[in-house]
């Protein structure tokens, strides 16, 4: 059954309308990602409404390609302007910008494209190979196991939140609290709804996400003005496609970074930014001449770019199989699935297998499309990097209003979006990270529901979580991940895993960025 679905998915993807959607998604994504300050997550959140009128598979194919292309677009801004369009591209700045300054902007972008292709193809191949197995494996994931995965997801977010862990926990806790709004699944009792029918279904996290990420960014762009113009490289005149010998030298690095990306993506709560720093550090560790890094070294561009594209495939696995998004970008992709009436989780592989496989194939095709579209249009794309912030800001606000309305055709949701925008602004000024709030908002209902279901299945006994081998192992991981954040464990791991400390240190240097 699964093998035939694989073919159904391929047949779906090569339909002209879907190929067109992939191409359009790639173009739009690249241009949006190239605008400084517009992240891949925002690109999806803002353009979600574009896909409403499309068939689910077409819409999802478009969203997936949009996401991948926006990641590449982010590195255009990183390399030319020294402003990473996405946090995942922050590592690219270190070597990309110096290379561009040397007049090799084209080479830097070409390397980034090639690396993205390697990472992207690898992760799609893994995704397509693993997916048929997933169909069987997810059946082993009932409420008890999913509860444990969600707990693990929560703890990892806690230990990875940028800046102050306390503020990260605060943000996550607020997210979990907000997730309690709405009807209780097992009793039908409305909670914190204040007799407001619009809140019965809970807070739509896609709406919250649009507000949290877009509004503060728009305000920031408008307030900041255009400061970067002087430092930017505005010309791409040299050859983009790497030579064969260059390709050969960077290939092992690309594959290694791709693998890192896939594995990091698999872990719920970690996304492109973690993967690209991780890969960058590994590339540096493997390099003969470490001093080259930071001065425009090709390996320093290839590593993060291969990793952050490979993350997509890895992160999609827990997203589609368990309904637990691996990163805030996959969370938005998950929102896309739900908008099209498809609930991610075990039934995605059984009930909506055709759509799922179409999405997986679309990821592969989008990677290839991105390579060619990138080669052809990157030079044109340079123009959008010069769009003034004062234009981009208001446009974001308009798109946010349309987007949040269109999800449920609800005026109430516009208000909700703006409220979350205000929360985002407040968080920004207190330096509280917003991604933990989003993850709390997404994982909250999952935790709540699966906890109650598990207790019903286990006859009211919490012992069910330990009797079940999968959940017991996952919960132990969760405990370790929590201990890891405590000072005791921190000093212990510093002794054992020295290289990783560098990764953490590098992460802290960029700590000011606003999450994915």
């Amino acid at each position, binding site marked *: *059954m699964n093998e035939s679905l694989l073919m159904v998915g391929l047949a779906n993807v090569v339909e002209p309308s879907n190929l067109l959607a992939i191409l359009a998604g790639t173009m739009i994504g690249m241009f949006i990602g190239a605008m400084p300050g517009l992240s891949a997550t925002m690109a999806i959140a803002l*353009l979600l*409404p*574009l896909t*409403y*009128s499309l068939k*689910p598979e077409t819409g999802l194919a478009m969203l997936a390609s949009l996401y991948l292309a926006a990641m590449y677009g982010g590195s255009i801004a990183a390399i030319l302007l020294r402003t990473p369009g996405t946090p995942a591209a922050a590592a690219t700045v270190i070597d990309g910008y110096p290379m561009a300054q040397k007049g090799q902007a084209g080479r830097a972008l070409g390397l980034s494209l090639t690396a993205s292709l390697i990472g992207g193809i690898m992760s799609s191949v893994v995704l397509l190979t693993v997916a048929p197995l997933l169909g069987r494996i*997810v*059946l*082993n*994931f*009932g*409420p*008890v196991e999913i509860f444990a995965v969600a707990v693990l997801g929560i703890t990892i977010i806690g230990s990875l939140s940028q800046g102050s862990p306390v503020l990260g926990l605060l943000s996550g806790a607020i997210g979990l609290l907000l997730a309690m709004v709405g*009807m209780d*699944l*097992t*009793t*039908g*009792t*409305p909670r914190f*709804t204040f*007799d407001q*029918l*619009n809140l*019965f*279904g809970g807070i739509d996290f896609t709406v919250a996400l649009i507000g949290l990420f877009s509004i503060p960014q728009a305000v920031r762009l408008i307030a900041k003005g255009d400061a970067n113009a002087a430092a930017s490289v505005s010309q791409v005149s040299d050859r983009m496609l790497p030579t064969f010998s260059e390709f050969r030298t960077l290939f092992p690095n690309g594959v290694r970074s791709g693998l890192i990306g896939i594995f990091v993506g698999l872990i719920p709560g970690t996304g492109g930014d973690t993967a690209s720093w991780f890969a960058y550090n590994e590339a540096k560790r493997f390099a003969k001449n470490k001093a080259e890094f930071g001065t425009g070294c090709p390996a320093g561009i290839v590593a993060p770019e291969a990793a952050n594209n490979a993350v997509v495939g890895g992160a999609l696995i827990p997203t589609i199989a368990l309904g637990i998004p691996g990163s805030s970008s996959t969370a938005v992709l998950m929102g896309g699935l739900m*908008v*099209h*009436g*498809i*609930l991610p*989780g*075990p*039934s995605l592989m*059984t*009930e*909506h297998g055709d759509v799922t496989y179409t999405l997986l194939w679309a990821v592969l095709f989008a990677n290839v499309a991105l390579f060619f579209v990138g080669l052809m249009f990157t030079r044109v794309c340079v123009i959008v990097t010069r769009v003034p912030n004062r234009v981009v800001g208001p*446009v974001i606000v*308009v*798109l946010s209003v*349309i*987007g949040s*309305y*269109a999800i*449920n*055709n*609800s005026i109430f949701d516009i208000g909700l979006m703006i409220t979350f925008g205000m929360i985002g602004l407040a968080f920004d000024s207190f330096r509280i990270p917003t991604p933990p709030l989003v993850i709390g908002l997404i994982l909250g209902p999952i935790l709540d*529901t699966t906890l109650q*279901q598990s207790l*019903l*299945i286990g*006859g009211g006994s919490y012992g069910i979580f330990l009797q079940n081998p999968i959940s017991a192992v996952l919960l132990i991981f969760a405990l370790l991940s929590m201990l890891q954040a405590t000072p005791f464990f921190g000093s212990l791991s510093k002794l054992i895993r020295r290289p990783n400390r560098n990764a953490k240190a590098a992460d802290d240097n960029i700590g000011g960025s606003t999450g994915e």
Partner: protein
Amino acid sequence: MRMTLITALVATTAVVGAVHAQDSGYSQKEVSVMQGFKAGGGSDALAQLVQPFLAEQLGVNFVNQYIPGATGAIAWTRLAKQAPKDGSTISITNTPMLTTNYIMNPSITYTLDEITPIANIVTDPGIAVVAADSPFQTFADFVAAAEAAPSTVTVGNSGVGGDDYFTSLQFEKAAGVQLQKVPFQGDGPSWTAAMGGKIDASFTNVGVTYQQIKEGNLRALAVFSEERLPELPDVPTATELGYDLVAGSSRGYSGPGDFPEKDREAMIAAMQRVMDDPAFQKAAKEQALNIDFVAGDDYTAMLKRQEDEYRVIWAEIKDEVQAK
């Protein structure tokens, strides 16, 4: 940007069907159809199937409005309290949510008396399924296990207030057993959990599980229809096994209260012609939709009867459920 705006607007209202110069006696040329669920769901499937045929028969344009939220209650509150009563607005009404919404939640204030049922179109019968490797070979095995150990046999349903939840309650009453009811977010997660052996059985619907039953991934123990289903001839009905239980989820059309009687009659007549159309029957069969046409006052009576049943059941178990 302009493109995005237009696309978003198009997405909010999809025009279905075309105006035909045929006099069917209907007072309006354009009819809004409010759906309490998202585009692409079960209600939408009904709309996409029926409305192109109905538009031709009735000589009107249908415009779908998707107003998801509170299991349909936002759309139905709007239908009952705000919709113009001139035939220009109708809504797809789903059972049992149409009535269980306000039976279970005092803050949902519309009632059946404030809407005018027009006709039921489809019913997806309930069904009890277990994993292919389940020890329950027959419905009798399942009942025996439930009798032997009350409140231990876990049975999934599509959510509190949904049809399968009330089916479980009705079954408990009819068989005098106590099940451990586990609500899920919809039918898919419920039967998937049963297929993976995470729960002992799932009370769900035929339409969503037929494919898996046919492929042997799920075993059907009993259907909750009046008679055996032609597509599952070996599966007994609960009624023939001695349990007074006919249940499922139905979808039809209703207007606001004081809907013009003339328009109601015209629409029912047009629906009847659609039901008799072989092209429609073929289209319905392809989508595995089980046609169950109940028109006019019969539909009102059907909803009333259900409302009474649910009210009684909920009154009995309300305290027990919400005390948890």
